């Protein structure tokens, strides 16, 4: 693992943390809970 790979991994982890936080927004909860119910698979 060189410095670039560590930096990329850190950026990915940060992006995931931001996205995860977005999932916890109240509007996300209402719309996505209904949306998942409509999905018939993954």
């Amino acid at each position: 693992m060189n410095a670039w790979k560590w930096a990329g991994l850190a950026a990915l982890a940060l992006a995931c943390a931001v996205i995860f936080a977005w999932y916890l927004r109240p509007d996300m909860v209402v719309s996505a809970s209904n949306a998942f119910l409509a999905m018939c698979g993954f």
Partner: protein
Amino acid sequence: MILCVGFGVRAGFGLFLQPMSLENGWGRETFSFAMAIQNLLWGIFGPFAGGIADRYGTGRVVALCGVAYVLGLVVMALTETALALHLGSGFLVGLALSGVTFATILAVIGRVTPPEKRSTALGIAVAAGSFGQFALLPITQLLISAFDWRVALLVLAAIAALIVPLAYFTRGKAPAHTGPQQSLGEALHEARRERGFHLLFWGYFVCGFHIAMLTVHLPSYVTDNGLKPEHGMTALALIGLCNMVGTFAAGWLGGRYSKKYLLSAIYALRALLILMLVALPLTPLTLYVFACGIGFLWLGTVPLTTGLVGQIFGLRYLATLTGIVFLGHQIGSFIGVWLAGYLYDQTGSYYGALVIAIGLGVFAALVNLPVNEKPIAERRPAHAAA
């Protein structure tokens, strides 16, 4: 990148249920039916897309399916009738997914990586698809909130259009490195006679059953047991997050240890986690532990199953053969979603469906054990000598 876009764009489709149904005056079943068509056609077209990719080259299939993806999204954006929705979201996107997802793309990954790095590479590719799903769902939500559903779909169409130029990098087909030259028909005949192929099919069936059932019904199970919708949403986000790590780990481990034992362990652990969900009182803590655990085991089956099919049958017809096995996954998805809903309507609880999911987890853990991991090409001389 193709997996990231292919899976990511589709992941947010469910978010269009409410705005599209509201504006066009549809019931929930109209949109759900389009999604059911999409999932079923994704599975049914898979072996054919794989067959064409194996015979004529992957790049053409991916490019054509990328165009179908864009067309499907544009038709969805312009739709005012249920028929147009079924054509766009159901037929065109279902067709597109068969060519831009696991079977075709993982076959390319398989053939461009050396054997010792193949499993890890498959794990990274599937993790990229998982990241696409995880990331594009909130972005889709943001687009619908900021503009409207039609604009959001057109933006997604522009994102999906990236698949077409990216298809250039997937061109070519795998040469038959080992054993005699084989036609597609002979490869299919060989797979049909191999017990391990059938066992992997049924293992994947269980994978689809678990994943689709939990994705669709977990939020309801959470609220039925007295928790808030926020807890269900957090659980699904945790699943998405841990899935990326777990998928990569499964691929990495698959390069070092027996893939069939890893698959068996994944299914057994899933059964154990679902048993924990049923047996323990549901609190936010137990739910989140379950979500992290099941998320870690979520799509780890994909690099392992694909890697095992390639290991046993070789790379020449990998897209076709994994397309057939993936059909089992999609049938399992369909039955998992339907059966859990049906049993809930009959009994007023998810208990029956979860018990079946535990039983199927044990079944899948057992059926992977007799799979012969030795490449068929290496078995031929022994057969010939006998």
